[in-house]
């Protein structure tokens, strides 16, 4: 999944690196607004969670399996800015310590999976959540649709980058068809998993889910009188 070194040419890699650096800088400031002085430990633990989540392989059948990318999931659970920040840190750690994704392609990976994945997922999530009834039970389906859309969107942005700075003479139309087709399948898996994970967290601790917090706040404290017999 991670773009390796040499896939896109050097100028494209540098430009996406600048975009990624700018995006992460904004995300840092905004995440501090979402989390204040808890930012470092909370984002660190959420990043560790995303990394562990990517380690679970979901069986697809025929012996193959896929794993979660987690952009939309992180955005719904902890908010888009903190989510993008956590995913960027995960990608940075993977590039420096696990040789997963090239160091020169780090900017591309952060732009695609961190920024585009999180924000496309979150935007669709908010749109769908606005249409669905304002109940906590509609958070999970909205998150699933956000995840479903976020993966092909990231794949299309990759195709765009490939059209600008690709190093293989493959027809862009063919690349776009292959990337979209394959990533729609991945997106369906991502959607099912994201929806199920969000549903389980909403059921247990709705106050922790960023995308459900505005629904929890409106629930008023209800004092019930004990049934005395």
């Amino acid at each position, binding site marked *: 999944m991670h773009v390796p070194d040499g896939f896109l040419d050097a100028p494209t890699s540098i430009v996406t690196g600048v975009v990624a650096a700018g995006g992460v800088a904004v995300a840092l400031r905004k995440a501090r607004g979402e989390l204040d*002085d808890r930012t470092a430990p*909370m984002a660190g633990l959420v990043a560790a969670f995303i990394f562990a989540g990517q380690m*679970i392989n979901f069986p697809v059948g025929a012996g193959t399996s896929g794993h979660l990318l987690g952009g939309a999931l992180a955005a719904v659970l902890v908010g888009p800015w903190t989510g993008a920040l956590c995913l960027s840190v995960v990608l940075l750690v993977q590039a420096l310590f696990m040789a997963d994704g090239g160091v020169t392609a780090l900017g591309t990976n952060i732009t695609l999976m961190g920024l585009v994945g999180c924000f496309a997922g979150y935007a669709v999530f908010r749109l769908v959540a606005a249409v669905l009834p304002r109940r906590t039970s509609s958070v999970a389906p909205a998150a699933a649709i956000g995840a479903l859309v976020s993966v092909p969107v990231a794949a299309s942005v990759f195709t765009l980058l490939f059209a600008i700075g690709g190093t293989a003479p493959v027809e862009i139309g063919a690349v776009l068809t292959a990337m979209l087709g394959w990533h729609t399948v991945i997106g369906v898996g991502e959607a099912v998993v994201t929806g199920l994970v969000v549903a389980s967290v909403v059921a247990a601790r709705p106050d922790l889910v960023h995308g459900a917090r505005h629904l929890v706040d409106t629930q008023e404290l209800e004092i019930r009188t004990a049934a005395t017999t």
Partner: protein
Amino acid sequence: MGAGHGHRLFFHGHSAVHRAPAHLKVLVLVGFMLTVVATPRDWYPAFAGYLLAVVAVVLLARVPLLYVVRRMVIEVPFVVFAVLVPFIATGPRTDVLGLTVSEPGLLAAWGLLAKGTIGVMASLTLAATTEPTDVLVGLRRLRLPDLIVQIMGFMIRYLDVVTADLGRMMVSMRSRGMNPRSPRSWPTLARTLGALFIRSYERGERVHLAMLSRGYTGQLP
């Protein structure tokens, strides 16, 4: 529950490469890889030179070459793609071993494989010779925002705790008869991830409170 020192890829040693300051190593890695990526792919001798350079550093670090080679499996999915390129690429056709492939596609596949492989080897060398704490110090010296370095530090520190937490959940589910190879286990796996998120988030809150009680004001000493 004692965690090992260093991370999974670290290879303990005392060579000059291990001792070199981490910020220098990161800078050299990024500079080297930018050079490799910018090299035109038909400069074949240059790539031989790059490969020799990486191998020389690995040998200088006294890390067994096999140790690095064995960890290069991370590259496999990408190799599959590179092998497919000559078949789907455009351009004049040529015959190789009885197969008709695209000539520029063949060159592109070579370029992808050469650059990708050198990249993975170089990154593995950094990972094998540098302790995580040294990388963090190095990144701070490279003026990476302090908050990013702190977040990375917490992620690395709790990575093994969180993954071990997940491992224990998987073991207990397996011992109760769950079959993780069946798609029917998707809901169970997803609920496990949900539980893991709540545990990690609450651990973060506890860590933050513990830090506050020790005088944390937003800066780590």
